């Protein structure tokens, strides 16, 4: 059977369901805090496949490989920086086997997280070195059987650029999502609208753009409103956290209920999102509720920020249209600079 492509799947369906959390679900299966989930591709391939399978059975159309921290900079921490090819290849092939075993088309997305380094000029990692690391990972994910490359949790323009260009060398469709977790912006200060604008001028065109992780389901929907506003033409992706993390009996527990995540999925759909999934805390039970909700849902008008708050929880000032950073920059008198050098 020939594999279905992202394009084919998107043109045959209004929405696609991505998957849930990797880390949080691995904890339930015995991952110890501080250990690298990526090493499970070797040590516990059965558990990795179990989680993939549970997502597929719950209705995921796209599953993400267990390779989020599988670039040479992150692996260095576990003295595994020379195992990028091996671990990514395995990660993709484990997901591939589960996807192929399903009786409906399931896409394998090669997860690519940030390096953890700061790029030049503020930090020390050069664009070339960054690009090379992402290209290395992308090639191995493709080799292992990934259908698309899925860049996620990025916070700076520099890393987004390096990651997309590196991933682009593999010749697969590339999806890019950033994490908006700081007053509605990324840690490095980018707004959802900035991100949308930037994606227009990236050298490597993205098959999908969006947001993942962040602070909670409500802020996620507000975030994608900003992205769809800047890029009404784009395929938009949302992979929001399952509520807010709480610490219960030695484990991290996210407080989002299946009902909340179902409502989040509907609102994300109304906001114009085509690919919807969950990030930290999202289990197969949540995904099942999200799938049922999406199937039964007729998309309505874009939700207002008030409606999002009422149904999912509070959002940032930025989502309310109040940009304190821009206000401060506009009233330059706040800090009367007598001199400024370019």
């Amino acid at each position, binding site marked *: 059977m020939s594999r279905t492509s992202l394009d084919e799947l998107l043109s045959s369906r209004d929405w696609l369901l991505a998957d849930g*959390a990797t*880390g*949080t679900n*691995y*904890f339930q299966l015995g*991952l110890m*805090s*501080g*250990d*690298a*989930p990526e090493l499970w591709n070797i040590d516990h391939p059965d558990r990795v496949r179990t989680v993939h399978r549970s997502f597929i059975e719950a209705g995921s159309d796209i599953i993400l490989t267990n390779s989020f921290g599988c670039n040479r*900079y*992150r692996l*260095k*921490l576990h003295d595994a920086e020379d195992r990028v090819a091996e671990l990514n290849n395995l990660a993709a092939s484990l997901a591939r086997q589960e996807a192929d075993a399903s009786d409906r088309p399931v896409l394998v997305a090669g997860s690519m997280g940030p390096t*953890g*380094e*700061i790029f030049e000029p*503020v*930090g020390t990692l050069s664009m070339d070195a960054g690009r090379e690391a992402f290209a290395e990972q992308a090639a191995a994910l493709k080799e292992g059987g990934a259908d698309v490359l899925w860049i996620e949790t990025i*916070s*700076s323009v520099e890393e987004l650029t390096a990651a997309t260009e590196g991933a682009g060398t593999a010749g697969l469709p590339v999806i890019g999502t950033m994490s908006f*977790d*700081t*007053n509605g*912006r990324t*840690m*490095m*200060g980018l707004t959802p609208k900035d991100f949308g604008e930037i994606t227009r001028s990236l050298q490597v065109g993205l098959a999908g753009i969006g947001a993942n992780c962040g602070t909670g389901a409500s802020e996620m929907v507000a975030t994608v409103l900003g992205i769809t506003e800047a890029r009404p033409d784009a395929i938009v992706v949302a992979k929001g956290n399952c509520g*807010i*993390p*709480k*610490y*219960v009996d*030695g*484990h*991290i527990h996210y407080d989002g209920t299946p009902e909340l995540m179902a409502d989040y999925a509907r609102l994300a759909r109304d906001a114009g999102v085509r690919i919807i999934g969950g990030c*930290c*805390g999202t289990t197969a039970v949540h995904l099942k509720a999200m799938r049922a909700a999406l199937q039964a849902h007729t998309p309505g008008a874009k939700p207002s920020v008030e409606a999002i708050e009422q149904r999912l929880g509070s959002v940032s*000032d*930025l989502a309310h249209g109040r940009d*304190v*950073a821009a206000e*401060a*920059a506009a009233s330059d008198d706040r*800090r*009367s*600079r*007598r*001199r*400024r*050098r*370019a």
Partner: protein
Amino acid sequence: MSDEEELDLNSLDDEELVQQMHDDLYDGLKEEVEEGVNILLSRGWLPYRVLTEALVEGMRIVGVDFRDGILFVPEVLLAANSMKAGMTILRPLLAETGAPRLGKMVIGTVKGDIHDIGKNLVAMMMEGAGFEVINIGINNPVENYLEAIEEHDPDILGMSALLTTTMPYMKVVIDTMKEKGIRDDYVVLVGGAPLNEEFATAIGADAYCRDAAVAVETAKEFMVRKHNQMAAV
């Protein structure tokens, strides 16, 4: 005000110069900050006064705007680098003059986590606020924390985690400190994007610090409390 205008820092009186240094710190102008530090020293200012009035106060303003969502990590890193450059000049002089210290902190990111950025920001802002900071880096198993607190005897232990897979490790460290009966000898502050107040309480930390600016404020509060307690005994 013109952007082209070149300014001779020597032509400013002390008060103007300090104001200008706050602005230069805010803009991350490292060389100008270094020049300002040297000028104040040459005018006979004590190193401790240069530190507190020019650098610490400048970083406080940066911290407030960071907390309020007006500045972001890149700007704060540039500002902190400028502050560090100024500190490099002052540090040996401060040691000679026996300047007072607010307190001492050991800080590190927990095992399995390589996130440097937030933790380094906290370290720099704490240093900027006048704390002595021992930064033990990333990926620290509990043994590293124990060694560092034994060697340096800090007032405060700071732990950072940016991953949901690593944040529970903070509890491992705190529990080990409890077992050894040393938990209450230190103020334990925790931070990192996925954390919150409730989590900090649940694992037995003293406080959760939302960002670097809050970390500094919280650390100062705890130091005041500690001094008051000691005065009361």
